[in-house]
């Protein structure tokens, strides 16, 4: 893809995301009145998209965004009323824009025609004509407002001013002056205060009467509170009344609920700032950050060599001033490199709110389609995760979400019969846990019925007829490939993928998935993924002459054992670890590596969490190292047990183990041991 097209797609994607977030926000808060700032934000995004697609010659996006912009312009200028139906209509057209953008990304050009959509917008606008709210440019409205203010207002700002006047709000200007070098921060602080008091209509920079090196502003504000309160809150600045409000300021505050909209309890509060900051951010291709990470990885190797040489020097020549100096320098190098690495990783971090807002959309649409009432509660949007991880985890979460709506939450009549409230509750919590991020998805629906799962698994011959499993073991059968409780394929969740695909995806990200259920009550899926995959700490092991890396995050301890400590239970190898049986997997056998002579001593790397643990048997431990994990590419990525490759030292490439899938293999084959000894407890 050409660089320009890539840039176009990337910027357009951002704009569509902003538009979507804005529209969803409007939808959510519509019952409390339309928030003009959010609406204006949506307008601005579509407006920018239009300009962008025009410059880039993307006719379809241009025409459609133009039509949407016209609609949004009417809405924000109050010429048309914002309704639930209008928002849904705009969201529908947003989908078409997304589709077009996808086509440009994949095929290099637009394929879908927008003619039908344009016609529909025309019709929609015609239908709404009767309900036009306000006649443009009502005369005589702006009395009392000085001309030096009115002449610089944009059409939109003027509309906000007229609306405020009509509502008989008290209008003031706040005069402020700041140092030119740092005014943005200070002004932002002031604007935050103003947002608590009313609506900021315009920010007008001024020259006259301002000292050199400083900058002055007149902020035009429609107050929601009384003048005296505003003066008290803004006592550092001068507040001048332009148009007084009539007495009884209390009643006016209830007329304009646009600012400080109270949110439902439990709902995530996403504060929409009144003004987007003139931020100093840059957009960077993640590939470029990866390239820096690679360089840092190589620097790490060089640093390793430096400290090794240092150690050799002191070994050969004893501790002289040089070797001490060298060690000191190498320690500083190590520390700085670590800092650098952390800083780079930080750049890649995004709040999971981005993931949430996309899920939110799906839930709204599906609930509408399915006629189920669902209250989606999102927590922990501020939790940060690597950008790539955020992208990768969306699909699994989306699938689980669809499952919850489709199979989890019961239809209204069944809920009522079961004594539950009609509205089903789906909660998604995100929180950091060490080097991991945990997503917990809970629905208060059917729960998973163990009998049904067991019957299905037997029917599909996924387990032996006579095999016995405990409750947890049964519930976990839903993760087996080929298992799907849905008897019909439908639009929502039955796209031929089941929880096994979700599990596989999570596992390929180096994560784990678990499920807990109370039949008839609720189901909770817990997905734990590493914060980043880019750089991980790993234990380097050697077996049959091959070096491999085991991610440290999934390693709990290492053991040194003698061959006679390995016991056999039903043909499986285990060792006893603190009174419990630990299944052993010989890495060399797992990967069909050449076996050399039996050794006097082996090492075991214990991997896994909680009760699900296995030991990887290797010839020797080579130490710990930070590695930059690279994907294996399409041809090799399906190989079970390997999640990627990493470079250690010059030109030496090693494989990075996928612990979750290794464990899966081992656990499946040791299912019977578990049932018999019950020593490991699932």
């Amino acid at each position: 893809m050409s660089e320009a097209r890539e840039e176009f797609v990337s910027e357009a994607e951002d704009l569509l995301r902003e538009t979507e977030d804005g529209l969803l926000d409007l939808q959510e808060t519509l019952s409390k009145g339309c928030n003009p700032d959010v609406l204006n934000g949506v307008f601005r995004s579509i407006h920018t998209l239009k300009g962008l697609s025009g410059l880039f010659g993307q006719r379809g996006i241009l025409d459609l965004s133009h039509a949407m912009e016209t609609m949004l312009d009417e809405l924000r200028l109050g010429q048309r009323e914002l309704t639930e139906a209008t928002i849904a209509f705009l969201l529908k057209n947003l989908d078409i824009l997304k589709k077009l953008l996808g086509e440009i990304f994949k095929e290099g050009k637009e394929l879908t025609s927008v003619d039908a959509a344009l016609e529909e917008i025309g019709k929609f606008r015609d239908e709404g004509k009767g309900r036009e709210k306000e006649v443009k440019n009502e005369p005589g409205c702006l009395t009392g407002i000085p001309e030096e203010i009115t002449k610089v207002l944009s059409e939109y700002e003027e509309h906000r001013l007229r609306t405020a006047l009509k509502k008989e709000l008290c209008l003031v200007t706040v005069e402020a002056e700041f140092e030119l070098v740092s005014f943005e921060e200070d002004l932002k602080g002031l604007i935050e205060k103003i947002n608590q008091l009313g609506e900021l209509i315009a920010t007008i920079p001024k020259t006259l009467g301002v000292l050199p090196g400083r900058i002055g502003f007149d902020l035009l504000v429609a107050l929601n509170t009384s003048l005296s309160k505003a003066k008290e809150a803004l006592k550092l600045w001068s507040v001048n009344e332009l148009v007084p409000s009539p007495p009884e300021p209390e009643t006016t505050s209830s007329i304009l609920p646009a600012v400080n909209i109270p949110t439902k309890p439990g709902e995530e509060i996403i504060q929409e700032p009144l003004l987007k900051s003139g931020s100093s951010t840059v957009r960077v291709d993640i590939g470029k950050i990866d390239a820096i990470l690679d360089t840092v990885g190589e620097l790490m190797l060089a640093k390793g060599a430096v400290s090794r040489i240092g150690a050799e020097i002191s070994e050969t020549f004893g501790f002289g001033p040089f070797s001490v100096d060298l060690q000191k320098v190498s320690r500083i190098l190590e520390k700085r490199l670590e800092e650098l690495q952390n800083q780079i990783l930080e750049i890649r971090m995004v709040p999971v709110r981005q993931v949430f807002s996309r899920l939110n959309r799906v839930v709204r649409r599906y609930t509408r389609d399915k006629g189920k009432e669902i209250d989606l509660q999102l927590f922990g949007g501020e939790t940060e995760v690597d950008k790539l991880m955020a992208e990768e985890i969306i699909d699994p979460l989306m699938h689980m979400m669809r499952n919850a709506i489709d199979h989890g939450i019961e239809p209204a009549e069944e809920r009522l019969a079961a004594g539950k409230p009609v509205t089903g509750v789906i909660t998604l919590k995100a929180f950091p846990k060490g080097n991991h991020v945990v997503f917990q998805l809970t629905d208060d629906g059917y729960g998973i019925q163990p009998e049904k799962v067991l019957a299905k698994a037997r029917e599909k011959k996924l387990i032996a007829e006579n095999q016995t499993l405990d409750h947890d073991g049964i519930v976990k059968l839903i993760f087996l490939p080929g298992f799907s409780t849905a008897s019909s394929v439908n639009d929502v969740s039955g796209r031929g993928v089941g929880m096994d695909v979700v599990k596989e995806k999570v596992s390929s990200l180096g994560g784990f998935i678990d499920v807990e259920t109370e039949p008839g009550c609720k189901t909770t899926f817990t997905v734990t993924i590493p914060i980043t995959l880019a750089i991980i700490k790993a234990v380097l092991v050697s077996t049959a002459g091959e070096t491999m890396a085991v991610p440290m995050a999934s390693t709990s301890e290492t053991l040194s054992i003698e061959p006679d400590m390995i016991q056999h239970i039903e043909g499986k190898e285990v060792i006893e670890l603190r009174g419990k049986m630990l299944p052993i997997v010989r890495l060399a056998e797992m990967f069909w590596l050449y076996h050399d002579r039996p050794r006097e001593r082996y090492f075991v790397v214990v991997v896994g969490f909680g009760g699900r643990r296995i030991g990887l048997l290797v010839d020797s431990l080579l130490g710990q190292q930070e590695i930059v994990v690279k994907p294996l590419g399409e041809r090799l990525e399906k190989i079970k047990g390997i999640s990627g490759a990493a470079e250690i030292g010059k030109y030496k490439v090693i494989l990075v183990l996928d612990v979750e899938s290794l464990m899966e293999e081992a656990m499946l084959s040791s299912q019977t041991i578990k049932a018999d000894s019950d020593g490991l407890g699932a």
Partner: protein
Amino acid sequence: MKSILIVEDSAMTRAMIRTALENIDDCEVEIIEVESGFEALRILPSREFRLILTDINMPDINGLELINFVKSNPTYRNIPLIIVTTECREEDRNRGMALGAFAYITKPFEPEALQKLVQKALEE
């Protein structure tokens, strides 16, 4: 070297304008891009700008407010301003012209048209 300031919140549009300006024959220009009105205010005193190209619809202060600021300041008032905006914002554009903008051009624009306009403005 003549310094030109581009005030525009879309990176793509900024790049398009920059390409057009860099390809003006026999004219060496230094192009400074900012993505918001606030940034424009801060960068204005940093050098002698010969021309400002500004969008109207921006997140912090709008282009009209910027034009007014430039035109009412004795230090900057001789800098010509060109409004770069979409065709449907006619009302805003007219207000900008009334505040003393030199010209306007609507998006999407032909590079040659912008180049001509810029050359004319620089000759002023």
